[in-house]
């Protein structure tokens, strides 16, 4: 899929969200060791395990409870993350998905614009909850660019690319939030693990759309 292909071509129904979250679960599981490795340089070496545990619970809950709308799927996923992950990423990602889900209401199919707005609401909620801003070397540095890309009419692939670029751009940053902030200057030169996992989650949109 090229980055110029418009997102509108996909049907954003409940199965799509199911596929998205399942794909996200698969990729955080596949990359768990890398995420933990990143977290080990400037954190406490658990980000991979946290994401894997959380998204496994998400996938299981989706299979079991079969939510009837995109909004319900995201809210269920967000709740799972909040009650299964712990750490910083649990409440933050949990809030992201829950808030996005709430924004979607109970429509059975949604438009790309609705998705973009919902994700923006979710990302804003993360920023508010964690008190971080872009440039602080957190997951927001991948999430914000992704939402911007979608808002500018970009495809999922464009969003994934923006998220990945944002994640890579955290490397030279000085951390101001999360555990990496304790390292001060020594946080510079390492990629933020949460930004890396955000890039994976955004990239999973493209897989869901296939």
């Amino acid at each position, binding site marked *: 899929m090229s980055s110029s292909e418009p997102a509108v071509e996909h049907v954003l129904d409940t199965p799509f969200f199911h596929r998205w979250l399942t794909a996200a679960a698969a990729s955080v599981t596949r990359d768990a060791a890398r995420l*933990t490795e990143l977290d*080990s*340089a*400037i*954190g*406490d*070496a*658990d980000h*991979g*395990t*946290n994401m894997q*545990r959380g998204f496994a619970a998400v996938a299981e809950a989706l299979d079991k409870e079969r939510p009837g709308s995109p909004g319900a799927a995201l809210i269920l996923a967000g709740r799972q993350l*909040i*009650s*299964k*992950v*712990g*750490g*910083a*990423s*649990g*409440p*933050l990602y949990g809030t992201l998905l829950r808030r996005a889900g709430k924004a979607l209401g109970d429509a059975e199919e949604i438009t790309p614009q609705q998705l973009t707005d919902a994700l923006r609401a979710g990302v804003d909620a993360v920023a508010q*909850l*964690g008190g971080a801003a872009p440039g602080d070397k957190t997951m927001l540095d991948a999430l914000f660019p992704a939402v911007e890309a979608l808002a500018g009419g970009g495809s999922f692939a464009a969003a994934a690319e923006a998220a990945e670029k944002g994640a890579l751009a955290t490397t030279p940053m000085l951390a*101001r*939030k*999360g*555990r990496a*902030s*304790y*390292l*001060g200057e*020594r946080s510079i030169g390492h990629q933020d693990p949460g930004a890396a996992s955000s890039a994976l989650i955004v990239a999973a949109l493209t897989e869901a759309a296939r």
Partner: protein
Amino acid sequence: MKMLINVAESVVSDALRGMAACHPELTVDVENRVIVRRDAPVADKVALVSGGGSGHEPLHGGFVGRGMLDAACPGEVFTSPVPDQMVRAAAAVDSGKGVLFVVKNYTGDVLNFDMAAELAEDEGIQVAKVLVNDDAAVTDSLYTAGRRGTGATLFVEKIAGAAAEEGMPLERVEAIARRVNELSRSFGVALSACSTPAKGGPTFDLPPGELELGVGIHGEPGRERRAMMTSREIADYAVHVVLEDLPPDNPVLVLVNGMGATPQLELYGFAAEVHRVLGERRIAVARTLVGNYVTSLDMAGASVTLCQVDEELLRLWDAPVRTAGLRWGC
């Protein structure tokens, strides 16, 4: 890295099964990961609940009991627990007088306890929170996550726990907890990284001949790496940083805390150096506690926490406590 475990996935529940088996004075809900003192809720007493990632034992589960915590919620290793645990704990210990959440200042702990507080209040439980952020190694600022909570957590839990046991109302227990935190500062060093079960190896590389200054308790690297120092030099450095930040005008409680793998023989030698520096600075020591209390799995190293105490705080410190990890007077 060899560990005395079954599989990485079960370390926390295995340890909880052990707590349940070895401590009949506790009620341990292994599945839901809540450790509660058996006689909870204690009538007419404010309850204290704390929790955090596992790997810091005896903190917090080892501090549940008369005169300290009413309940603790252990998360995965180095991962804060989830709100469900905290709400369950609060419900189990609330006597109607309210619950104080003792929260170490980490983004994860703060967010999860915040959510739990909201949920608990929805259930009609009055909740107050105290944030512990004593680590003088971390520069504090409005724009950062702020300072970590480390050794002072023990002082806060012990002293506020005693205040609750004396029957003080929630606001006073909360105020005392806050005061203890404000009057406490810590500094830690690592001679080795720790290994988490999930990672299976050291969380960072520390070459022979070097140490990390200003480390926390989660296996994260510190503020600075230096050529290895003597016990005397480390004590000079650590106490200096702590006093720079909070020059005491009262006697201090001293915690000389082992990170996990440093032998007690070394810890006491280090305690001697800490006392020497304090003596040189003419700071009176009220009490000293030496041992592995706020640990970082198998990390080698130590931290120093000082807490200024007036007569009330010292009385509360000396009050009876009966937990697996700290016990006196009963």
